[in-house]
């Protein structure tokens, strides 16, 4: 009997602990299927796997890849994996399994991957290439994927933030549409006027996790910062950051739906369902937004407001990079594909197809014309004629970003003042940065 009980205990503990294995093994399953694909591929002359996380970009990229296959004969398998699973899969692959051959890199994670030799060193190949013009890519974005003087990824795109607004609501309230003369104070005034007391309509919305597409822009435009230039200290307690966050807090209290509503529904859905009148949003959302009938009928895009004191109009920006697996079985094909994506022609094509704005200098004007439903010039004005700030990052960006979100949620739900929340965020972030 005692033995039986013991056995029962052991078995039940297995059930719990195999959870950890679950996480690993599901990744494992993905890996093995990817492995099966690639081994099968090498038989038919080098099939390579490409992984991305944005389904909206798949059709356009597939077209560019088809051209690649026609030109070079390499078979390419393009897979879309959701953001969360994407990083779990790469992490599992990097920890000793199989990885896709070519994939997107993001500034949140790039440093760690570069330092650990997970990514293929492209430096020599770039030098040897006669098709690439590296000086045409934005310096900041290139920097993201350089470590110790070696380049590990080539910029794929850039994104900026602009202001979406509901024309119908502006008309109804008798307000002029946002334009390039707007300051954040005008934004606040309009937002308050567009908020109806019965709670059926609000001026704007922003969640604590809307950083790059939300409060980061206000912070930098008011002269604040999120992280110091040497990436060693938090800027969350910088006086200008505090001032900007107080502005955000005032906006939240006077012109936004309750934090519970915003967190349950998501700000983009609130705009799509006619609940809010204005929303800063990234250029990566244009592809899904142009498919939405309500937005097409009612909304348009303007530039973000500037700050009255500093006179600065700021857009956060970021760019993904195409990287390759250092251990790929087919380095030549992987490199050729990355090179293919990065030529002027294909960067133009990416813009024209409306995949995203391209990283290559000057070709994004073509992106503007991928739809006539919205005035996308606003995103280009943000790109060309405003102060661009690269998305704040350090070695372990995600960890402190999540911590900041958690701390700000406390202020959003009125448990602490925004001042306290930011100062707590700063001290938590400093501690995390010191451990990096």
């Amino acid at each position: 009997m005692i033995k039986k009980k013991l056995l029962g205990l052991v078995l039940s503990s297995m059930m719990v602990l195999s959870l950890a294995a679950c996480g690993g093994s599901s990744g494992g399953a993905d890996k093995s299927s990817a492995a099966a694909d690639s081994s099968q591929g090498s038989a038919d002359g080098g099939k390579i796997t490409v992984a991305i996380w944005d389904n909206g970009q798949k059709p356009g990229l597939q077209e560019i890849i088809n051209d690649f296959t026609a030109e070079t004969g390499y078979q390419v398998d393009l897979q879309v994996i959701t953001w969360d699973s994407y990083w779990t899969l790469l992490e599992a692959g990097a920890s000793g399994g199989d990885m896709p051959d070519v994939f997107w890199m993001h500034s949140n994670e790039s440093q760690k991957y570069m330092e650990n030799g997970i990514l293929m060193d492209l430096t020599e190949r770039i030098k040897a290439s006669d098709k690439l013009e590296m000086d045409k890519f934005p310096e900041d974005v290139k920097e993201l994927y350089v470590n110790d003087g070696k380049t590990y990824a080539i910029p794929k795109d850039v994104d900026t933030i602009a202001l979406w607004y509901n024309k119908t609501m502006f008309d109804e309230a008798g307000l002029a549409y946002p334009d390039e003369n707007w300051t954040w104070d005008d934004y606040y005034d309009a937002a308050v006027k567009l908020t109806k007391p019965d709670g059926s309509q609000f001026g704007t919305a922003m969640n604590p996790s809307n950083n790059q597409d939300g409060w980061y822009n206000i912070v930098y435009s008011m002269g604040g910062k999120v992280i110091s230039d040497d990436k060693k200290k938090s800027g969350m307690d910088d006086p200008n950051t505090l001032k900007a966050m107080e502005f955000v807090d005032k906006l939240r209290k006077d012109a936004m739906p309750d934090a519970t509503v915003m967190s349950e529904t998501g700000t983009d859905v609130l705009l799509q369902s006619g609940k809010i009148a204005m929303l800063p949003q990234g250029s990566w959302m244009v592809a899904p937004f142009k498919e939405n009938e309500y937005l097409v009928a009612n909304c348009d895009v303007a530039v973000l407001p500037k700050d009255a004191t500093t006179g600065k109009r700021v857009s956060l920006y970021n760019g993904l990079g195409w990287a390759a697996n250092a251990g790929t079985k087919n380095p030549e094909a992987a490199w050729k594909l990355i090179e293919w994506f990065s030529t002027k022609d294909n960067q133009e094509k990416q813009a024209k197809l409306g995949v995203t704005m391209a990283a290559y200098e000057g070709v994004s004007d073509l992106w503007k014309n991928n739809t006539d439903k919205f005035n996308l010039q606003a995103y280009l004005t943000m790109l060309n004629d405003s102060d661009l700030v690269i998305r704040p990052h350090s070695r372990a960006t995600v960890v402190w970003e999540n911590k900041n979100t958690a701390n700000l949620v406390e202020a959003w739900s009125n448990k602490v003042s925004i001042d306290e929340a930011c100062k707590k965020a700063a001290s938590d972030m400093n501690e995390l940065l010191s451990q990096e």
Partner: protein
Amino acid sequence: MNKSRMTPRQKSELRWGWAFMFPTVLGLLVLNIYPTFRTIYQSFFKTGDFGKGNKFVGFGNYIKLFKGTEIWQAIINTFKYAIVEVPFSIAIALVLAVFLNGKIKGRGIYRTVFFLPMVAAPAAVAMVWRWLYNSEFGLINNIFHLKVNWISDPNLAVYSIAIIGIWSIIGYNMILFISGLQEIPSDYYEASSLDGASGIHQFFNITIPLLSPTIFFVSITRVIGGFMVFDLIYMVMDRDNPALPRTRSLVFLFYQYTFRNQDKGMGAAVVVILLLIIIIITILQMLAQKKWVHYN
């Protein structure tokens, strides 16, 4: 048992027995037992990127955990969830099983309907409930003209999630109970109704005692299942949700440390703590079974 005394037939049975067990044992060793010890081992390390450069820190991860507030809140949340989910899912399933074991019209349809949630993918279930619960556009608030923040009110959210848990598991428990009920000889019921026992009397004095081994089995597995709740919370709660700190379960915390923050040592420590809690509760249940479980 002395091997030399075995007949050739017994020997052959023994060999075949082992041969048939081998695949399962191998699976257990590779997928469960090895990872278990590996996890315990890992919880004593500060893990480096991509599993390289792990540093031994002794109980460092545990000390760090218990100094913080997250783990305590997660333990409370997990208990709250289990305390609601386990008894209700068992009680409701038991009553349903008794009804659906009797001869009523459309029995098969009812059984199927109650079992269906078990067949649906948990992620899909959670997404549907998330929209039912939505405070602005949700069906529940709109039908009953309520203004309740089911999943973003910190005091309520964990129970809202427990309701989803109950809803999804009832069918499974019910099937186990029905199979248990069919083992009970109908003579007992016939004899007791001759003596004038009402249905309720029969339920408490015949059904429950004779079904107690099944109830015991279900409650053991449900407690373990309840303490391991993750997918519902993960799918329903966004990171901006003010109720997240008050619904985050131990497994969610494990996920957060291991996969979001990529600190596998801390994640392993959380799971080991969960293991200890489950072991203690299971021991208590084993001890308590003597008082109420009847094996005949």
